[in-house]
């Protein structure tokens, strides 16, 4: 499994998918100037993850647990985030050890609701994590 490490900017989130430390997290604000270019890195990485599962002989000791920790994302990003969730949902449906933890700040019911919508559309149950402020 490859590592993906993208530093955050004022308009794009931090992405750290690190198999060595078992951290898979996307966090911050997402309204990049060109969302399709930004999210291509992530969607390419998921293709590689799929290949990794296909090639690996032994099951993983711990599941790959994705932490979505967005402060905010725009409507264009939402489309790509859903694409990412759908892909993870497909892998999960194939029995791959994948989980999604969707974080939201307490009193941010909009972020909780959009997480539920993404989960429904991706046909993949998320775990919801409230962040106390």
């Amino acid at each position, binding site marked *: 499994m490859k590592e993906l490490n993208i530093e955050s900017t004022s308009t794009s989130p931090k992405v750290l998918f690190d198999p060595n430390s078992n951290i898979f997290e996307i966090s911050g604000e997402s*309204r990049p*100037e060109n969302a399709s270019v930004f999210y291509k890195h992530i969607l390419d990485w998921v293709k590689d993850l799929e290949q990794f599962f296909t090639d690996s002989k032994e099951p993983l000791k711990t599941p790959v647990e994705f932490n979505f920790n967005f402060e*905010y994302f725009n*409507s264009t990003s*939402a*489309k790509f985030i859903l694409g990412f969730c759908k892909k993870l949902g497909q892998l999960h449906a194939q029995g791959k050890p994948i989980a999604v933890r969707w974080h939201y700040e307490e009193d941010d019911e909009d972020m909780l609701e959009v997480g539920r*919508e993404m989960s429904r*559309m991706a046909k993949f149950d998320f775990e919801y994590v409230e962040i106390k*402020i």
Partner: protein
Amino acid sequence: MTGNQTILNYKGPIEFKTTEILLQKVKNDLEAHTIKKVLKKRVYNIMVECVENILRHKAGDPDTAIHPYIVLEKGVGEYFITAGNLIANNEVALLKEKLTDVSNQNREGLRKMYDNQINKENTIDTDGAGLGIITIAMKSDNKINYSFNPINEQFSVFELQVSIPIET
């Protein structure tokens, strides 16, 4: 509307860099407001969609000096956003149709429209008044108004007004 507090009042050219500056200011200013965090995010969210709409759809008329504009005000029970830009007259009918469609929906109808739009393939570059407008309508509880004012044979000023109720 008197007694409104103006948070942002910008008129001028809008490029991606400009949106960063404007939205950062809005974000910082909203931080000082004693309202629920979800409401701050909602106002910010709608501002982003409005500014990005301008960025995506603004037309330039070399014969006029009409720049895009965006205003954010706080009234007694609501935040109020006004966003305007030039659009080509031949785009007015389609945009009007989409806006009418959105404004006729209740919450459930908007959710269905959002579902259809977000699950469409390959519409990112031609999004038009798609996901952005639906998101604005959902987050404002469909408190949107709009107008088209023709300025010459080629262009009109499109203005979008959004009200975001302050819940207590």
